[in-house]
């Protein structure tokens, strides 16, 4: 098991009132799975992803990631988990603009304390994996949207994480580059990488092996089906 959410609630304090954004969410993901979480805008997808990605903590409920209880973990522990066990892919790529593709991919290894030589080797291997080895010295501004997202994917997988977590990975891409990214995800999943992907596009969600639906902060197995 990669992670398990049990009866998760998340409230945001707005003014004085707590506004519930996630309600009683339970979800467990096994190794090698490819799960898509679908839902309309504002339904709580990103909030859920932040919790799964150990960037935020739930208000209530238990969340175990790779055997560790996240609720009680401190900043150092959470940083380590994000660094070594989770690879993030964002809608808007989030590459450092002044650094080359290679340097961007090296970042997680830098934080993991990997030596420069090994960093370089692993980053080049990851860029090869996404088919961008020949562009490794390019700055993000010199790359197309699809290429930027592939650099971001290389950065996400460079540490061989337990989980690849993607929030609307094709949201800022044209159909063709979006399809390329989906192709890459499928290949990675075939190689054994566990993927959780958030999207609001049914076509993209279809690439996954399992689809979950979120509406008004509640998780469903079927598009309109009963609560899980």
């Amino acid at each position, binding site marked *: 098991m990669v992670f398990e959410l049990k009866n998760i609630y998340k409230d945001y304090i707005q003014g004085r009132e707590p506004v519930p954004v996630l309600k009683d969410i339970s979800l467990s993901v096994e190794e090698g799975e490819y799960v898509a979480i679908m839902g309309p805008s504002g339904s709580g997808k990103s909030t859920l992803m*932040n919790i799964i*990605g150990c*960037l*935020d903590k739930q208000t209530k409920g238990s969340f175990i990631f790779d055997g560790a209880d996240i609720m009680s973990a401190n*900043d*150092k522990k959470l*940083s*380590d988990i*994000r*660094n*070594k066990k989770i690879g*993030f892919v*964002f809608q808007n790529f*989030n590459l*450092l603009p*002044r650094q080359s593709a290679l340097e961007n991919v090296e*970042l*997680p290894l*830098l*934080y*993991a304390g990997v030596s420069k030589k090994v960093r370089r080797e692993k980053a080049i291997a990851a860029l090869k994996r996404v088919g961008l080895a020949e562009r490794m010295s390019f700055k993000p501004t010199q790359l197309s949207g699809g290429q930027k997202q592939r650099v971001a994917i290389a*950065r996400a997988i460079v540490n061989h994480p337990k989980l690849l977590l993607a929030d609307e990975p094709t949201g800022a891409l044209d159909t063709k580059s979006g399809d390329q990214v989906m192709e890459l995800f499928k290949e990675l999943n075939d190689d054994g990488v566990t993927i959780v992907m958030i999207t609001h596009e049914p076509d993209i969600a279809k690439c996954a092996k399992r689809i979950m639906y979120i509406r008004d902060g509640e998780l469903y197995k079927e598009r309109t089906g009963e609560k899980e």
Partner: protein
Amino acid sequence: MIENIRLSFKGIFSHKIRSLLTMLGIIIGIAAIIAIVSTIKGTNEQIKNNLIGAGNNTVKIQLSDGDTVCDFSWENPPKNVSMFTESTKKRINELKEVESCTFYRTRNNPDNLFYLNSKIDSATIYGIDKDYFETAGYEIVEGKGFSDRNFTNFDKVVIVDKTLAEGIFEGESPVGKILEISGEPFTIIGMTVQNTVFEPVINSVDDFYTYNQTSSGLIFMPTNDWGIVFRYDEPENCIAKAVDTDAMTNAGKKTADILNESITKESAGGEETSATVEYKSESLLEQAKSLQDLSSSTNNMLIWIASISLLVGGIGVMNIMLVSVTERTREIGLKKALGARKRRILAQFLTEAAVLTSIGGIIGVLTGIGLSQIIAKVAEVPVAISTPSIVISVIFSMVVGIVFGLIPSIKAARLNPIDALRYE
């Protein structure tokens, strides 16, 4: 760390104008401090050189009546001062502050000095013991010095200094010429010059009076001959050479104490006794010190003003760093998502602030050095660049960066990664 420094340079150079403006306060502050400190140091060295001579470290201990040095060209020597002996000299030499000492007598502008029937007006005659040249820092440049036999035989020989030789003999060698002192013929056996590299700068009337006596010619004779031309019982004065500049004050005081033992306080009934005479060490060093204190206290105020400029510079750095943290909220959020710990973010921003202000400090030091050269030229004030002040300035500007970078850096390190990632 090296990575952080590299990144800082990259960041600073990608915002050249902004970085330069941020550094401006630091640059001005440090440049002002360097220029002021250089001027203080230059002035101090000038004062020291002017008053006590460069590196000679000698103190004169002279018989004085009140504040005036006794001059026996017109007054009779007091009866209660006995002559120094070899054991007096030995005791002075044994002082730990004293390297060597010498006894001498002087007579300013005597009216009984002639060369070939023409009177020599401005000259000072010294009656010296055999340690004088060594201790007072003279060397023989022509002819020879006094031998022991010159002293014991009462030989009528003198040594003149270069100023006198040039004034009277007009380029001819003085050696072998004969001077008439008090009707007695004295043969010149050598010429001497003071070997310190002391070139006084005459800026004021006071300076002029300080140096004019060294600009008149000097004639040295063995002290044993003094009785031939002047009075045999004139008390001697002393020059003590201190082991170093700092020991000068003590060397002078302790030597004076020993010399004063030769003065009997109670008048023995003689009419020439004076209860007020005593040996006093000249306080040139103290004068120099107080002048230096004066010049540095006025300049200390300037340093405070410059420090305010540094403070303003520091606030400027803090301001820009806060802007930079806000601008880079996304970057910080991303780094945190990728596993960067608080400490790393903190270190990154602190390094950036420190590198920024250090570069400012270095530019400031260079500007300050340039500025002090300009001051030296325009105001004709001597300047001396002090290495410690340069090192301290650069370290200090680095500290300013760290101190004023702290609040922005803590703010960056505390950012919540989701808020940071969400930030547009």
